[in-house]
């Protein structure tokens, strides 16, 4: 019998990770807006740092998506724009089934920043000028999604602000492991239901000079309203801090709005 009757088991899980990007892309011709708010204690100045990252996301085609963002922070004098970045992701492998999928994507980011270089760890999301290239693989089975990524980073000078830690320390690798689970709704009936997802992510970096690393754990909760608005709340906590950072702990509040078929 060719005509397979698919069972009505719910096909959903969560891979809209808070601290990493999954291998899946957003829909073609959709545009998303994000306000990423990071709050962190600076270990040196003891003041509470605030970083605002407005971000625009664009589904360029079924395989390619692009993010552009700006970094604003109160680290220096007042609350000022310090830089920006452009990120693109290309989904090159997909095996989809009704109840699961496995996807892989390659991604790259170029960041520029004019803030002074204040830590050994390389951060292209608000600290360093530089570039990053990597691969992410995401497996989704029913309500659970698991994603791993690995990337290579290179830090350049922040304009006239030199990278202070020697040329050999400009290179690092990032690696992540993310797990997400859909908690609510138990059963989908409409687009207006609120979705709730719980996630735990491990975020690490090893500098290729002396092999110093950090490893963080980042639990988060996510709410999706009306199938187009998203609120993420997360906390990033360091487990290993051999690689120096000024603010290893941070709190994240993200607001996101998506427009489908925007043009």
């Amino acid at each position: 019998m060719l005509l397979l009757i698919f069972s009505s088991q719910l096909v959903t899980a969560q891979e809209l990770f808070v601290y990493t990007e999954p291998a899946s892309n957003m829909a073609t011709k959709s545009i998303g807006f994000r306000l990423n708010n990071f709050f962190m204690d600076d270990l040196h100045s003891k003041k509470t740092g605030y970083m605002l990252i407005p971000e625009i996301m664009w589904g360029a085609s079924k395989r390619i998506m692009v993010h552009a963002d700006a970094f604003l922070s109160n680290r220096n004098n007042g609350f000022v724009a310090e830089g920006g970045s452009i990120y693109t992701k290309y989904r090159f492998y997909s095996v989809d089934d009704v109840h699961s999928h496995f996807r892989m994507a390659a991604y790259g980011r170029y960041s520029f920043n004019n803030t002074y270089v204040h830590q050994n760890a390389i951060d292209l999301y608000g600290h360093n000028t530089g570039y990053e290239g990597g691969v992410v693989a995401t497996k989704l089975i029913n309500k659970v999604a698991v994603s791993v990524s690995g990337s290579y980073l290179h830090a350049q000078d922040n304009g006239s602000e030199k990278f202070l830690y020697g040329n050999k320390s400009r290179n690092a690798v990032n690696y992540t492991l993310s797990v997400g689970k859909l908690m609510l709704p138990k059963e989908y009936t409409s687009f207006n239901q609120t979705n709730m997802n719980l996630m735990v992510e491990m975020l690490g970096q090893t500098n290729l000079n002396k092999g110093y690393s950090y490893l963080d754990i980042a639990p988060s909760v996510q709410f999706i309203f009306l199938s187009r608005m998203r609120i993420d709340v997360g906390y990033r906590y360091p487990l290993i801090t051999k690689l120096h950072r000024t603010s290893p702990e941070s709190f994240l509040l993200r607001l996101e709005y998506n427009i489908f078929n925007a043009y």
Partner: protein
Amino acid sequence: MKKIFFVFTLFFAFATQAQVKDITIQASGLTCSMCSNSIFKALQTLDFVEKVDANIKNSSFGISFKPGADIDFDQLKAKVEDAGFFVASFRVTMNFDKLTVNNDAHVNVGKNVFHFLGVKDQYLNGDKVIRILDKGFVSSKEFKKNSKLTKMECYGSGEEAGKRVFHVTI
């Protein structure tokens, strides 16, 4: 003789007629209602689509069409893929008017050619649900499995002599 000829042409003219009533697409690879919403919105942008009913639980979409509209199966599939997902099943409810169907053979249905696979030779009349088996209209696993059903080259290309051939089953 003229009369017989007339009856014959009339018969064949009607035999090629088949009206698409509605289509149900099940998508695969969905992760959340936001993903389902993106397919829902993408399908609505097609000018021949009148209404889309989404069943989020099954990730399936029931589509009805504007009267007299020229319905393009490939465009519907492309919209699901543009949203970042794949078609797992594509079922078309059609109203057939006395169509003779033979297994592993081509038959003209409206502007398309249908290639029936895995069916008994039969006579289709009234509302029937057919499922499209072409590449991208079923999972890649199923597409591979069904390749045993025919030796004809159109199965891989979806074309014969420049004409779109849809591989279908009942």
